[in-house]
């Protein structure tokens, strides 16, 4: 029987459409517009939380605003009304933060995190990382039962993550990514050693 050969390193190429959408700099103007839309939404939300100094609504002084939000979403109403949070494990997580008074830390984290995501997307600085951060916050808001604009922002965030190489081409990533060692447009694809190994399956 012929011994099959399996290569230890295999790179599966993307289909042409995916390459055009997510890796081609010709679509950078489109991602630029998506970045502006999503980034401004985050900046607006974050800046609102930073500048709000109300005794019961602030996020950055003592976190009273997020504490009230947590209490509202963690509450379980009497049947047949359904709770805002659909997953018990997430309600437990929110309740744990309420009990341990993590609102001071998380209020600042959310307010400055949203602002940083917004600025990163608008200026095109590390778009992939900023989009992951934004999508993670969208996911948490959705788990907390807050729909609003989160589904749309989450979808656009996913697309920005997929297009991380070119989404910041009209922006600071054009400079930053080559500086941190990301090949921006080179074709120096290192082909790993194609050392054949024998298959243990012996198919």
């Amino acid at each position, binding site marked *: 029987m012929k011994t099959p050969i399996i290569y230890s390193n295999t790179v599966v190429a993307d289909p042409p459409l995916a390459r055009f959408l997510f890796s081609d700099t*010709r679509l950078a*103007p489109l991602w630029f517009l998506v970045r502006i*839309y999503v980034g*401004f939404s985050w*900046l607006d939300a974050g800046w609102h939380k930073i500048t709000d100094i109300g005794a019961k609504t602030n996020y950055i002084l003592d976190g009273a605003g997020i504490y009230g939000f947590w209490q509202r979403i963690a509450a379980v109403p009497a049947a047949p009304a359904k709770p805002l949070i659909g997953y018990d494990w997430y309600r437990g997580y929110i309740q744990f933060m309420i009990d341990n008074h993590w609102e001071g830390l998380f209020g600042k984290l959310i307010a400055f995190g949203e602002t940083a995501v917004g600025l990163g997307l608008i200026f095109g600085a590390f778009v992939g990382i900023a989009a992951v951060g934004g999508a993670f916050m969208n996911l948490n808001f959705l788990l907390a039962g807050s729909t609003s604009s989160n589904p749309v922002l989450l979808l656009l965030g996913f697309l920005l993550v997929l297009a991380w190489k070119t989404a910041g081409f*009209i922006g600071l990533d054009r400079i930053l990514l080559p500086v941190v060692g990301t090949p921006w447009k080179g074709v120096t694809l290192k082909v790993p050693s194609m050392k054949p190994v024998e298959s243990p399956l012996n198919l």
Partner: protein
Amino acid sequence: MGLGALIGIVLVSFALGIAVQLFGARKSRYDFLIVAVTAVFGATFASNSFPGSSVFSTITNWGPSIDGFLIIPGVAFAAGITFFSYFGSRRSFVPPAMA
């Protein structure tokens, strides 16, 4: 913003895009599209999103408007991001002979 204002923005933006395509130092066949789409987005986005936003909460008077379109923020923001989009995409389109 009313439909009339939106149609006006689209027409002006595409006229601008075609002008850039005809008279600009063009590098691709799509310059008119980049300019037009970016300008439409910028104008409508600024006019709809900037008033009421916490980022611009200190601004109370947004100036004149036509059919709900705020002229000053709309035109200024559209011009700004169209500039970045147009010049930022200059090196995106490499002619086949140079690729």
